[in-house]
């Protein structure tokens, strides 16, 4: 187990560099795609193996737990959940990409950057110290800036430039928060910082400055309203497999996950932080869906829904933190956190499914404007199947996974004594449903419009990625109870255990 944890970062990183070398060797340069698929598959297998073990701590370079310095990696329940999510979506996206990316030149660059991004996201969720978290955030971000601009068309470059500038401002705030927390505690290890912060005074001006900077930076990375301006440009502009990765996992790994980790495990989940999470989540949920309803560009519509759905996750986590922080019913707190994390996983599956099917539609018809599409259900049965399953999941129709996670969030928030927020969540779910009825109506049903008339089914590699994700969407809804037991309960416990949990499992004494 201990050797697997660094390999989660090292394998895709090595594959990324190997791809660059392979691409320049005559005769084997066609193997870059297979190489990337193999690397990501190896990561998924390792993530599943790690899932079977307990919490693992690795101190890179032989720096023991008692030292101040050194790079610590922590693989606890939450990290395992994220690893499975990231590598599952990455595998589907890269298999899809082997067919989708054929129309681009220099695809080896794509695969190399893709591997780099996967490695960095694995690193983000395994990071055990704050600076290491920042470094991996940056590696993932730089790879994603380049991937958004991959097509090198004017609008892609514009979106990537905007994304890169705002992303860098976000990172700057994260670094400022890390610097302030280091100045206060003299430590970078998350567990040690968490243990020392109460001695400094949790509501002192220094801690609030550091926490505020960290949370603002991470909220920008998570594209929470009012920090969302970059997302609706950046996510649709990328090639479809990258849109699936960005919306499916990047905003979760470097935004929501990092935010949750910092708030719960470093800052101790105080009620003022919980309130910030609730406000960010609630506003994003509502504003995101209202902006999405009016969109006619399929991918842009999906991107706005990502903001809204991530709002659900933060809302549930925030209410959970508040209940736990106020010493309320532990069952309700863990139900809230379970709802949030379950929705995070579900959103990764159905949003990547929707983005991949939008890419398949765009490739076969040459457009992603809903008004120019129509009648695709008969022309592209597999893609339409994937698109339908994704739409039913995000809209919250049983028995797909989105229904269960939204139901749990709404029930848990209501039980926590927040009926207004629960009603808001239910309202947003309804608007989401309406928005996806529109997608079904215009893209899949009706008579084929000019652009869609000649459309044929997408290649097998693309279709198979869609089918696999659609099956995951169905299974993770039906098999909620075993998943809760094996995947989400340990993840929720890692968050709700808060500071004490981290300390007891790291075995460090500050």
């Amino acid at each position: 187990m201990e050797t697997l944890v660094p390999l989660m970062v090292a394998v895709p990183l090595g594959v990324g560099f190997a791809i660059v070398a392979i691409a320049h060797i005559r005769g084997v340069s066609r193997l870059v795609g297979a190489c990337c698929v193999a690397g990501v598959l190896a990561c998924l297998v390792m993530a599943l193996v790690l899932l079977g073990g307990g919490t693992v701590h690795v101190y890179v370079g032989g720096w023991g737990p008692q030292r101040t310095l050194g790079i610590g990696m922590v693989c606890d329940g939450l990290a395992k959940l994220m690893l499975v999510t990231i590598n599952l979506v990455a595998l589907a996206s890269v298999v899809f990409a082997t067919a989708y990316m054929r129309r681009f030149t220099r695809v080896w660059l794509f695969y190399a950057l893709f591997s780099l991004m996967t490695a960095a996201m694995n690193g983000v969720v395994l990071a055990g110290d704050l600076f290491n978290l920042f470094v991996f955030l940056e590696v993932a971000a730089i790879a994603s800036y380049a991937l958004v601009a991959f097509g090198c068309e004017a609008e892609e470059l514009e979106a990537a430039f905007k994304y890169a500038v705002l992303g860098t401002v976000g990172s700057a705030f994260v670094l400022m928060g890390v610097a302030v927390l280091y100045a206060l505690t003299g430590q970078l290890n998350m567990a040690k910082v968490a243990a020392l912060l109460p001695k400094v005074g949790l509501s002192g001006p220094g801690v609030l400055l550091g926490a505020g900077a960290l949370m603002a930076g991470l909220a920008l990375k998570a594209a929470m309203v009012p920090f969302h301006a970059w997302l609706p440009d950046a996510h649709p502009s990328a090639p479809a497999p990258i849109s699936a990765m960005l919306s499916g996992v990047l905003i979760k790994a470097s935004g929501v996950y990092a935010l949750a980790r910092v708030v719960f495990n470093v800052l101790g989940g105080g009620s003022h932080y919980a309130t910030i999470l609730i406000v960010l989540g609630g506003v994003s949920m509502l504003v995101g869906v209202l902006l999405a309803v009016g969109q006619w560009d399929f991918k842009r519509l999906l991107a706005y829904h990502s903001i809204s759905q991530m709002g659900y996750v933060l809302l549930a986590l925030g209410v959970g933190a508040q209940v736990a922080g106020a010493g309320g019913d532990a069952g309700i707190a863990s139900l809230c956190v379970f709802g949030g994390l379950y929705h995070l996983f579900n959103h990764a599956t159905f949003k990547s499914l929707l983005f991949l099917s939008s890419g398949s539609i765009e490739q076969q018809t040459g457009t992603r404007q809903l008004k120019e599409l129509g009648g695709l259900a008969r022309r592209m049965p597999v893609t339409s199947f994937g698109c339908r399953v994704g739409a039913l999941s995000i809209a919250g129709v049983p028995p797909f996974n989105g229904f269960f996670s939204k139901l749990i969030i709404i029930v848990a928030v209501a039980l926590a004594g927040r009926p207004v927020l629960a009603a808001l969540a239910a309202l947003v779910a309804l608007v989401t449903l309406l928005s996806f009825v529109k997608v079904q109506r215009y893209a899949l049903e009706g008579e084929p419009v000019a652009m869609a008339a000649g459309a044929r089914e997408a290649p097998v590699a693309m279709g198979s990625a869609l089918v696999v994700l659609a099956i995951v969407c169905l299974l993770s809804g039906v098999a909620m109870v075993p998943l809760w037991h094996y995947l989400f309960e340990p993840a929720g416990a890692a968050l709700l255990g808060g500071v004490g949990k981290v300390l007891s499992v790291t075995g460090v004494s500050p």
Partner: protein
Amino acid sequence: MGIAIYVLAFAVLLVGLYAVIAKKNLIKVILGVAILDYALNLLLVLVGYRTGGTAPILSRGESPAALAATAVDPLPQALVLTSIVIGLGITALLVAMALRLHEKYGTFDVEAMRKLRG
């Protein structure tokens, strides 16, 4: 010294943020990002600084405890090196994208680039 130097770091940070938000020229925006980076590097170095401290290099025969009592904190310096490298990578990428945009539009003016709507 004292608090004034922190105020300076914060002022530099605000200058960078102002350039990123208010400037319409891509190159000036990139300069703003660079200034923002420098402000944070300055802050990081200041976090480990000690007035009148020595360089954190352990010479032969010197005890680590004695060095720790007089030297500046070396950890933020290591962090700053990493941060500078990251800043370099981002600046290079931004410049490359700005040049490509210049090829498309013939200008660095953001106002002329209107393919995307908010």
